[in-house]
């Protein structure tokens, strides 16, 4: 005591607070190996082949693909392309050809080595229109697409080796143990993964589960990672659960099934677009989730989304409607299994009625326009815009130069066709158990679970 005197007293006083702080601390500074991660999801994919275009694109499908497969490159959260199965790349032939050098020493989950030939074959299967060839230690792709690297980062372009019975095998951190299409997928850690064995021993995924059922499973400790419906995110966060949301990467929009046929129809579509109260849809029906929008791309992706006014303008809507003599009744389709979609469509019909328009909600497949959820397949704005155009069955997006102003012009041109009325941009959200550590979402909304681990429950 004499050695430190009063200073020792100060230190001891400090010790109390430090010990208190320590008791609230968390020892798990280092990842732990082992454990089985239980995941529940709403989607029910029936194929795990990344190149299978018969399956609808979804965030769940992206997540599953990236557990078992790798792409040649990836895109980080800043939109920068990073090496993955390709270690380097260069443009050839004046930009008409891309050469990507394949990483050496990588093996598929069945032990066979990754070769440029297999990579080229995989890309050809995913993109029949591409001209892809192996060249020594590289693959060479004849394509003038300015976003080739970003295209290659898409899960559908993940590299797969196909077996004699056409089963795809990947180089990813997990391999398939049990696959019951649309119901259940069991994966085991790949010990020889080129990025290192994942910390988790296994991942078990239950498919086709409703949001409420998923949340119950989380509460009962039967699931570690579940999806959260947009309108439930606020309540889940209030409950103190760990909630992870992506950037807004899903566009909810009204999509007309055919092109504008007359000047009158053009005015009526303008009236409908101006009548929708997106703000109240967000605040009331979605409990504050998402962002009202009149643009196809979210502002975080384009930087100019605010230029398109999303506020309802009933005066403009009525003015446009009053220029048309005959007002048809449009049927508005929605997914009959989606309660939120029905409520949203009913609200849109009420807004339209205020503007003097007549909308008839229907859950049948035949309708004049439909409420659709369009996943933005990439964080690259050009690819995302092209994806929206494809899903909305509009003409292909031109890619003249890649400047932000060109992007704006392309988006403006798509909107001017009046096939799509954007409503909201929504994030995808997940709730996880407190034991699940170090997991996150990729920029495309898919899970990043290779570095996730399960911690020890606190007593």
């Amino acid at each position, binding site marked *: 005591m004499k050695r430190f005197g009063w200073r020792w007293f100060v230190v001891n006083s400090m010790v109390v607070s430090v010990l208190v702080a320590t008791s609230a*601390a968390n020892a798990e500074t280092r990842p732990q190996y082992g454990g089985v991660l239980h995941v529940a999801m709403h989607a029910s994919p029936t194929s795990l082949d990344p190149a299978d275009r018969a399956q609808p694109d979804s965030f769940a499908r992206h997540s599953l693909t990236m557990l078992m497969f790798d792409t040649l490159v990836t895109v980080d959260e800043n939109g920068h392309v990073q090496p993955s199965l390709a270690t380097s790349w260069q443009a050839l032939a004046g930009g*008409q050809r891309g050469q990507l050098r394949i990483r050496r020493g990588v093996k598929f989950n069945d032990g066979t080595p990754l070769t440029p030939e297999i990579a080229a074959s995989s890309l050809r299967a995913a993109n029949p229109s591409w001209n892809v060839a192996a060249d020594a230690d590289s693959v060479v792709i004849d394509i003038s697409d300015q976003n080739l690297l970003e295209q290659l980062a898409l899960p559908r372009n993940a590299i797969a080796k196909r077996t004699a019975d056409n089963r795809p095998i990947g180089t990813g951190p997990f391999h398939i143990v049990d696959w019951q299409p649309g119901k259940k997928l069991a994966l085991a850690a790949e010990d020889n993964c080129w990025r290192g*064995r994942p910390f988790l021993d296994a991942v078990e995924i239950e498919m086709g589960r409703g949001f409420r059922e998923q949340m119950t499973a989380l509460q009962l400790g039967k699931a570690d990672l579940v999806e959260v419906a947009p309108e439930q995110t606020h309540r889940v966060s209030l409950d103190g659960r760990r909630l992870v949301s992506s950037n807004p990467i899903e566009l909810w929009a009204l999509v007309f099934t055919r092109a504008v046929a007359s000047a009158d129809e053009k005015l009526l579509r303008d009236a409908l677009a101006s009548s929708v109260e997106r703000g109240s849809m967000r605040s009331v029906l979605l409990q504050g989730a998402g962002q009202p929008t009149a643009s196809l791309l979210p502002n975080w992706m384009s930087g100019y989304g605010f230029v398109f006014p999303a506020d309802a303008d009933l005066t403009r809507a009525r003015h446009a409607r009053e220029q048309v003599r005959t007002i048809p009744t449009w049927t508005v389709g929605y997914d009959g299994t989606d309660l939120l979609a029905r409520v949203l469509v009913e609200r849109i019909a009420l807004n339209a009625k205020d503007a003097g328009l007549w909308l008839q909600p229907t859950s049948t497949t035949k309708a004049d326009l439909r409420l659709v959820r369009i996943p933005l397949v990439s964080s690259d704005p050009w690819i995302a815009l092209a994806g929206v155009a494809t899903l909305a069955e509009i003409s292909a997006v031109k890619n003249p130069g*890649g400047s932000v102003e060109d992007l704006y012009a392309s988006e403006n041109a798509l909107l001017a066709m009046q096939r799509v009325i954007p409503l909201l941009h929504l994030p995808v959200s997940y709730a996880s158990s407190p034991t699940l550590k170090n997991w996150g979402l990729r*920029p495309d909304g898919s899970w990043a679970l290779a570095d996730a681990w399960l911690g020890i429950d606190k007593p």
Partner: protein
Amino acid sequence: MLHAVYNSAIPNVFTSLVDRVLRSASSFRIVVPLSYLLLGMAFAAHAADWSGPEQQLAGKIVAVTGPGAVTLTAENRSSLGKRDSEVIQNGLRSALGGLGIRFVNAEQAAATVVLSLSENQSSYVWVAQIRQGAGEAVVVMVSAPRPEGSTATHETVPLSLRKISLWTQDDAILDVAVLEENTVPTHIAVLDAEKVTLYRWQSGKWQQEQALGIVHARPWPRDLRGRLVPAKDHLFDAYLPGVVCRLAAGAPLTLNCRETDDPWPLVAAGLSGGNFSGFPGAGSTPTSVSPLGAFYASTRNFFTGVLTPGISKSTTVPKFYSAAFLPRDKYLLWLFASTDGHVRMVDGVSDQVARLDWGELASVKTACGAGWQVLAASSEGTGDSVHTYEFPDRDPVAVSAAIDFQGGAITALWTEAKGDTAIAVVRNRETRSYEAFRLAVVCSQ
């Protein structure tokens, strides 16, 4: 072809900030003292050169409006700070003025320009919405690259733990060894997943001397760990999972790696006696601690728990991440941070378990307090920190406040060769880069 470029490259011209401020000051007839004040403020900020995109956007605006009277309003929708936002607005006004634009009230203006400083995931996006008369707005825009961020500092307390930054890099640092030092380190070795790199402090900066590749056949496990340990007959050994590399002296230096599961030493080389050619002060301490090795799981991130030669008769403990020891009169008290989250205290006779919520551990011998302390890392919500502890009996007593790492995650904590300091490697959660610090206990202030 392979990269999206939103607008033509902005020339890498670092126009003097003095020129920038004086230029804007001149435009607005700001008096000279104020321009000096602005100059100082601008230097204090992380100034960036926005003149390229300013000129581009001004050109696009004038292409729509032509020279004449406009009114300009601006809003910042981005993460830009107020000062940067103002600098950009002033720069744009100046560029527009140079192209024949006069700024007037809205009533007198032929055009209205609404400037929005926005951003997307990769760059800033500046948008001008131009209205002339009752027509639809014309929208023009440019993008500007986002500059890198910066970090802050921290404070210390009496009987404190201090950190000294040694090295930063993007690749994960596994360990850093100080090979030579005067009052500060002048020669270091940095171990990462693929190489050992030697750097020497020359002409006021670290300069790379040599990079020696690590040869390994199997993929490294995730959460890779490694350690540099001084050797008696050569410079040092690099221990990695399933691989040990020997750095042999000579010109040039050579690194020979072999696949092996040899145990990793747990006692700092300088504390177990002997002479070491490379590490300053290693082996010079009068204290001699019995060496102890532990086998490392070559496909995981922990030690198997098998010890050699053992603690008295105990040759196994539960698998652990990290270990430290405290000399007692007649024995060593060993602390193991087990993978189950507990700390086990083993002295060869007893084996006690404590729930201390500690992660990485390192022993340091100092002139403070009991002479030996344990540094322990823990995670407290936003980031990891390190405390210094003593063990009067078997209960730890913190003898320093925590040293934090600005939200970073501690990925390694190893006692240095001499035994009186430790190396902490921290992953910065924002920049994703790795920084190695030397941690030293400061006894009296």
